[in-house]
């Protein structure tokens, strides 16, 4: 169960808006400073850790860039959208950002209301109005990977890659 303040975004929020091109090769902490700077400048200073992004259709359409990593670096609690681009969703799994498709969710909330999201029964609840919607169910293995930080911790635990050194972690980590 996850609870957070809702920020409303519209349809067709693409990856270039989430993470503008000039910053895609930079460390996650630097990427985070430029999230939505073209369409919603200043938002990164207003939002708080655990807040929830609620959007319309095609959230995350566009490139394979690590846009979910930049949102993770801002400690976004969860992304909910009427539809989510498949590649973006895949990157949410890989980078460990919670995201659910929930048809109609863009109409369920006003900005600033509280959302309550259950990843056990895939329900999204507006804590203010009490209204509830059903999200599209995601296979357990994918939810589990999202909740455990994505692919890298898994490959580390299986010995395929070495954990980052303390210096690398400080430089590249998504954590603020």
């Amino acid at each position, binding site marked *: 169960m996850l609870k957070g303040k809702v920020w409303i975004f519209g349809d067709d929020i693409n990856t270039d*808006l989430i993470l503008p091109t000039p910053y895609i090769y930079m460390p996650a902490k630097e990427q985070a400073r430029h999230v939505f700077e073209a369409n919603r400048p200043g938002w990164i200073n207003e939002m708080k850790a655990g807040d929830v992004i609620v959007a319309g259709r095609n959230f995350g359409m566009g490139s394979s860039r690590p846009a979910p990593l930049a949102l993770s670096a801002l400690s976004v609690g969860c992304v909910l959208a009427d539809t989510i681009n498949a*590649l973006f969703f895949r990157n949410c799994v*890989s980078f460990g950002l919670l995201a659910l498709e929930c048809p109609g969710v863009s109409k369920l909330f006003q900005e600033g209301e509280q959302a309550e999201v259950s990843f056990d029964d895939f329900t999204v609840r507006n804590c203010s109005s009490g209204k509830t919607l059903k999200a599209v169910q995601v296979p357990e293995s994918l939810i589990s990977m999202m909740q455990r930080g994505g692919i890298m911790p898994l490959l580390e635990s299986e010995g395929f890659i070495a954990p980052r050194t303390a210096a690398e972690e400080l430089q590249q980590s998504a954590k603020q």
Partner: protein
Amino acid sequence: MGMNIVEKIMARASGSARVKPGDLVVVGVDTIVLYDGNFFPAYWRELNSVKNPDSVVVVFDHRVPAPDRTCAKAHDVGRKFVEKFGIKRFHDVGRDQGISHVIVAQQGYALPGTVLVCSDSHTGSGGAFNCAARGTGGPDMIYALAKGETWFQVVETVRYDLTGRLQHGVSAKDLFLHIASRYRDHSNQNVEFGGPALTDLSMDARRTLATMGTELNADFTIFEPDQIMLDYVRERSQSPFDAQYPDADAEYADRRTIDLDAMEPLVALPGKVIGNAVGVSEVKGERIHQAFVGSCANGNFDDLAITAEVLKGQRVAAGVRFIITPGSQAIYRRALKAGIIETLMDAGAVVTNATCGACQGGHMGVLGPNETCITASTRNFSGRMGDPSARIFMASPATVAASALTGVVTHPGEFLRGGNHA
């Protein structure tokens, strides 16, 4: 009920008798394509082992030659990876380099009936060869390198049956803009192309369509095999493959027929392509500062040829920068031998080396504040090619070239003598 092409390839690759929409499948990956972007420290992790080095292709394309020290360092990391694991199919800056999806096509790396992954979103380009190819993310690449597999969630498929023939000067890009405009986004859907019109659609044209499937928001975009496709692949690859055709009773979410004779030059207005294209006449006269022909979608030989046909004997308008980026150094050389490059340069166009370049807004033609560009590339999002205030119109290479000559958005018809055009 039978299976469509993507379902058949997913079934084979996952070792299942059949798959259906909604299934989560773990599949063996036949080809893993890495590019320079994978080797930046924000994404790259040193691997202790690679499951099958012979399945790996490495192409440097996004930022080549290295425009700054950060990129140069990433290239160095990539070269060391290639050396450490003995990767044979490596396309470094030089003779055999190009945009990864173009290299995958021209080298015959995308084999019909197989699975290919690359962490660039336009990987669907390989669908032109009946290959289940699609963009995944950076971490997926590390996973596939380590384990030789990846996962997909099977989605429903829309089938497009193409009939008729594109008129001269009307291109696959116009057909794409028509689909994006009329049928809009294909979220959580695959797109399958087939039909009698394939006979007259070159592999370049099919690659444009397959590449732009990403911009329809499609998962996989894939073509039914025909003799032209099979010959193209066999000329380039000795590897065996098993091309996949849809079953006669394959299930589709929808089946749509498009008459290519009815297509006309279109332009997508700035910001997005879905539901945003209009006839060229509706934006005729819009002033431009830059014109661009290039990218994995439109850096093909066909694209350079039609651009030269429009430009021949004329001059790019004063105040317009016309940047042309061939999709590979091989295409560049072929265009050079055909006299195309000379025509482009005589007209005042700037021809760059093969790279993602201006399309990605990385280098080689980045837009400044409030500029207007017309582009034959992949995306027209705000900020895609540079400053977020720049406006990007998207059109075919012929329309872009005609616009470069006049300095305003222009229908290509009046500049084309080569054939029958409306």
